[in-house]
């Protein structure tokens, strides 16, 4: 049973808590004033578009009418998406694209980082060369790869035919089964440098003494990597994988420029499909609903990312 005394005590407590919070804010008013412009800008350029996208996802936006003539339909856009066979096809493509691109980019980056961690002649030059894919414009790279893969006159096809490995150029990006793997290769080529840089930084934190001690104890290279090096890379690995996954989930440029989501929609991933729905077909409501779903996934990945960063920060502080 709640007594008047209890309620008064709670009121006083919460009141004093509020006073304390306001007091602390007041004490740090200059700090808040410094970050206020950034917060305002973020509210305008991030919070409002997010709100508007969520709002739009509940409206029907007929392509023949202006957006202002939209009509409220509740969750119908979401139902349409989830009942559409295209949604599941595009989702599968997105999962394959994201998982495969992230995994192989990380793996290749790790191999390169480990190789470059040792001292050898020309290490700096090789490191610079391996960074090229990451610094090259994704748009330019996509056009170049389109010509490398070209089904009739591509460099790759010509090379394979010249080497006697194929009788005719392989059909990679004009084939529904091979187009996605072909695009993943391009994406991995472009992203592995990022993973390499991150992991090279991480490798600097592995204590040399531990590796030497393990070596003295008779650990072979694989054991030293698995039991000493890799555990120290756990934090940077999590961050790298999460950043790659987020980038790949939103990886628009390569599939759009190289194939436009084709042939027959076989290289459409969520982001290209959303773009086509919105700007090509003007289904703003459906596209907004897709975007909200994508946003939720991104937020989940974001939470993991922040947690990973915090863990990594705490471990550094502990060290």
């Amino acid at each position, binding site marked *: 049973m709640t007594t008047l005394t209890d309620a008064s005590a709670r009121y006083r407590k919460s009141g004093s808590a509020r006073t304390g919070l306001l007091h602390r804010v007041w004490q740090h008013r200059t700090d808040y004033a410094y970050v206020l412009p950034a917060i305002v800008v973020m509210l305008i350029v991030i919070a409002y578009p997010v709100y508007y996208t969520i709002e739009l996802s509940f409206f*029907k936006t*007929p*392509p*023949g*009418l*202006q*957006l202002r003539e939209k009509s409220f339909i509740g969750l*119908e*856009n979401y139902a*349409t998406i989830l009942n559409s066979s295209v949604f599941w096809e595009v989702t599968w493509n997105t999962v394959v694209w994201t998982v495969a691109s992230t995994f192989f980019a990380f793996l290749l980056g790790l191999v390169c980082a480990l190789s470059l961690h040792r001292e050898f002649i020309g290490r700096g030059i090789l490191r610079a060369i391996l960074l090229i894919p990451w610094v090259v414009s994704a748009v330019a790279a996509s056009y170049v790869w*389109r010509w490398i893969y*070209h*089904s*009739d*006159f591509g460099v790759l096809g010509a090379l394979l035919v010249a080497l006697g490995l194929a009788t005719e*150029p392989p*059909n990679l*990006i*004009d*084939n*529904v089964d091979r187009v996605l793997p072909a695009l993943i290769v391009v994406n991995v080529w472009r992203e592995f440098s990022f993973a390499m840089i991150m992991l090279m930084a991480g490798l600097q934190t592995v204590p040399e003494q531990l590796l030497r001690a393990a070596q003295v104890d008779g650990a072979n290279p694989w054991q030293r990597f698995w039991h000493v090096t890799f555990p120290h890379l756990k934090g940077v690995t999590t961050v790298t994988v999460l950043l790659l996954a987020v980038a790949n989930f939103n990886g628009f440029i390569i599939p759009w420029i*190289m*194939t*436009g*989501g*084709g*042939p*027959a*929609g*076989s290289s459409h991933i969520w982001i290209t499909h959303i773009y*086509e729905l919105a*700007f*090509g*077909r*003007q*289904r*703003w*409501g*459906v596209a907004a609903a897709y975007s909200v779903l994508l946003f939720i996934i991104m937020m989940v990945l974001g939470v993991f990312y922040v947690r990973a960063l915090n863990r990594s920060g705490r471990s550094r502080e502990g060290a």
Partner: protein
Amino acid sequence: MSAQAGGLPTNLRVVAIAENKNIKFTLGRNTEMRKLPSFLRRLDRRRFLRVAAGSGLVVAQLMSSAAWAADADIDLSKWSPEYVKSIAGTAEFDTAAHCNEIVPLDYKGRLTFWYQRVSEADPEIAKEYYDKFFETFRATYPNIELEEQGLDYNVLLDKFRTALLGNAAPMAIRLLILGGIEFAAKGYLEPLKPEDVGYSTDKFWPGAMKAVTWKGVPYGIPTNNETMAFIWNADIFERAGLDPNHAPETWDDVVAYSKQIHDKLGIAGYGLVARQNAGNTPYRFMPQLWAYGGGVFDEADPNPTYGEIRLDSPESKRALQASYDMYVRDRSVPTAALTNTQSDNQAPFIAGQLGMVISHPSEYSKMIELAEKATGADKEVAEKVVANMRYGLIPAGPTGKRAVVFGGSNISILKPEYVEGGVVDTKAALAITCMWTSPEWSVKMAWAASNPGNLDGFRTKWFKQRLDEIKFLDVTTSMLPSGIPFPALPESPEIMNIIVPDMMQAALTGKMSVDEAADDAAKKVKDLMGGSL
């Protein structure tokens, strides 16, 4: 617009050369006196005729009313390569003087303007004329602050739609013919007709005007209109055992020729294009669809109502089957057709690795440029290809029906509420519209890839120059009267840029059978027209 039998033609027009002044001008029912130079405005018709008669030149023309009318106006019923040649260079126009009557040349204002820029596939001369136009506009209207932005064909619609959503559109825009109705139907555009810039509506192709007219109101003025032609390499034809001097007569012949070229020479026969979200695809597939008797709706009929969906008709399926036969059965077209645009076909064509394509008259100029840039053995091959380029009419269907897309662009003016700042400088917008749609600039701006939207452009000296300089131009211009505009519906861009290419890709990749792909596309069009999500 046709000449009247006997007596004076009702659309009285007199062509005269004023005394000692080498100015050619016209007077007629559609020509208002205020558009004439001031010294001529002072003349009434009687006095004017006296002056003209004094020159001794007009009298001769008045003696023969038939010849007089033929020389003075354009008769679309007589359209042929010979007719186009006969009218070229018969009239002169002073663009600045004309536009001064619409918007004074000293007008002070500001204009934001977007347009579909020339593409990489266009020859250099097209780019030069675009630069020259804006340079001339700035010189003609020095007090109009012009902010122009050239956008790629495949990007323009997307960007414009996005800008409209944010009320950040330009004051005026030159849109592709496919896009005008969409924006007019949504209420973004101001009504705009040729008369608003001093030209008569009957000076523009009826099909072009139809493509900018929504519910009886015109919302733009055509800048240029074109039809494409069938281009082939005579040397490849000869080596493949085909008649090098004749284009395939029907689309079935195209399938057969393509196979023969591929089987005998090991190269691609026909340059099929089936990329999604690219304007090139419908421009090449729709003539095929129409020739077989199919269509998206009844757009190929004389009086289309767009009430019946025909994508799943047996005729449409037969057209799709022809593409399937070339791509899947015979493998006689580029494998990259699903990702290719027409510009991707240029390299194999100049390299002698592709036998036939559908394209603009500018293709010839482009090939000359590519040949000039080639070196060594490549140059020899390229020059041989240029020498063997032939232009012909687009093939017909099984019943002899020949069709081609009536393409082009239009200028429209936006309503202020959709424009950045909420203000449209209408006079500045009319000034650029007047200049671009003038007989002079509608020729120059369409120099390589199209034709003047203003029919008077065909009568200018610049058009005569084009005929002299651009090989095969007469072939493409002669097809203009048989051009079919895309359906004048707001849904057309989605149908042509997405649904039709999707249908082709679904069939050509084997994801669906030809029947299934056509049925699926018809259902998509039905859903779209029904307003589904």
